[in-house]
């Protein structure tokens, strides 16, 4: 077993809608791997097939060496799943919910320590339905990592978060990844993929558009930098693979280039290009 996740030729259709078409993926152990794509691209269908929550129409899938469609209880003890949207166990307290799920495993974290880890210790006595969106998601993660999984699935974990909550959540994910947990997440936020992932798979229309590190994905599309400055009232914009040289030439007489900026293409540019919007 060389990879945590191996997918070959995965396809899934709902009636006439082809949600996933001939998809190949490879996720290494210890990686943070993001599946990035617009809504309806097939991200959730893919991750749900990998979690064993959905049947596939065609293709080979191996998750921790087993086929999720037939894998048993011991396999489920080795994975952790954070589902997309849930509203369950509203009438239990946070601690009661965690305790209940801890009983499903032979070897689970101590509930109180787990809540400390995800930053919910102060809410442990609150009813789950009274939690904010961010707190609820932390509980979801707590339940996902309760048995220290080798592989954690996160399906759109920060949808609807404010920027601060999102950054705190990212720190939590990095903390888990630091322990060697393999993390596979879906997101439609570019900055999330760029901030967290070792590698990003861009999916559009159910097909794999590209897969690489965020940096190389960006470089792949366009290596030119954009240089902008003002001369009088005129705004100059030039694209060049050698921005340093360009600036040196322009300021030979020691002239200051007003409002000078040099920008590299962002992951967003790469992404928009890959999903065919540019």
């Amino acid at each position, binding site marked *: 077993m060389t990879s*945590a996740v191996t997918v070959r030729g995965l396809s899934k259709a709902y009636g006439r809608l082809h949600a996933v078409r001939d998809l190949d993926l490879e*996720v290494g152990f210890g990686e943070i791997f993001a599946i990035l794509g617009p809504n309806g691209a097939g991200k959730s269908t893919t991750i749900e097939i990998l979690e064993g929550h959905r049947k596939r129409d065609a293709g080979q899938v191996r998750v921790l060496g087993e086929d999720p469609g037939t894998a048993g209880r011991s396999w489920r003890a*080795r994975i*952790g799943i954070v589902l997309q949207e849930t509203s369950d166990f509203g009438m239990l307290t946070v601690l009661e919910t965690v305790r209940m799920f801890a009983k499903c495993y032979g070897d689970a974290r101590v509930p109180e320590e787990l809540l400390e880890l995800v930053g919910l210790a102060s809410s442990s006595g609150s009813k789950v339905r009274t939690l904010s969106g961010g707190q609820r998601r932390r509980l979801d993660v707590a339940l996902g990592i309760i048995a220290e999984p080798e592989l954690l699935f996160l399906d759109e974990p920060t949808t609807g978060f404010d920027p601060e909550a999102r950054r705190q959540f990212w720190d939590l994910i990095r903390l888990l990844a630091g322990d060697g947990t393999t993390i596979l997440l879906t997101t439609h936020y570019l900055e999330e993929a760029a901030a967290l992932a070792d590698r990003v798979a861009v999916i559009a229309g159910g097909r794999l558009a590209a897969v690489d590190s965020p940096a190389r994905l960006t470089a792949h599309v366009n290596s030119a930098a954009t240089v902008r400055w003002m001369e009088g009232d005129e705004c100059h914009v030039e694209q060049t693979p050698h921005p340093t040289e360009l600036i040196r030439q322009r300021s030979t007489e020691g002239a200051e280039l007003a409002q000078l900026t040099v920008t590299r293409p962002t992951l967003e540019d790469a992404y928009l290009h890959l999903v065919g919007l540019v």
Partner: protein
Amino acid sequence: MAIESAENASRPRRRADDSGSALPSAVRIGWSRVVPELKMFYRRPEQLALTFSMPAVICLLLGSIFSAKLPGTETSTGAVIAASMLAYGILSTSFINLGISIAADRETGALRRLRGTPATASSYFIGKIMLVAIASLAEAIILLLVGVLVFRLDLPTEVFGWFTLTWVFILGIISCSLLGIFVSNFAGNAVSAAVITNGPAVGLQFLSGTYVPLMVLPTWMLIAGSIFPVKWMAQGFRSVLLPAQMVLFEPAGSWEHWRTFLVLAAWSIGGLTACLYVFRWSDRS
């Protein structure tokens, strides 16, 4: 933190494949779910009030309307209804309760989340079945209290009577629970589950002798009611809670214990088969 690629990721965690050997059994996981299930049930006061008060209130209302004694007996029609009403109580705590709560667990994602853990379907159902058993017992005690105090029902004085009461109660719970689980598969959400459980439940009360005594029903209603378990449960309860002479007012002229047993057992086996065949963890395929 754009790490270049996976090769240099630190300390990937792998575990030996025998980690599953330490998993608790499905039954043990099931038992650990009983208390949480009970908490989720009693922390919804409106649901609690409806489940426990409806049969008792209807019993009191109908009993007050039909207060006249049956000819040649010391027993009122109200008492006949009160004895039969136990069947409605069990239907309410098993069929309706499970039909709605399982549909809700599917709607909220609780079932899908559980599916992602080493818990099995049997773990889930052990929790639900214990919830139903405890709620049904509480319901039975409430209705027996109403029956004994208000309608002067007699609790069984012999072992055989308690034996009959017990098996009718247990088989009734099992068959109605399985029907509730079965029906939950056809509900898209908790609201539609409430409709498709309460609707048939009310209809069955009229066909099964819990709202109206069987002796006034037209034949076609008797036949229709005889197909379903409620009529047989109610008949079983009447056989032990009413004076022996009341058997004369039964349409069959007998308590038909064997037939009651066979019908309830058949519904239990059929229900189990159907549930194993159609049970869905989630609303996804």
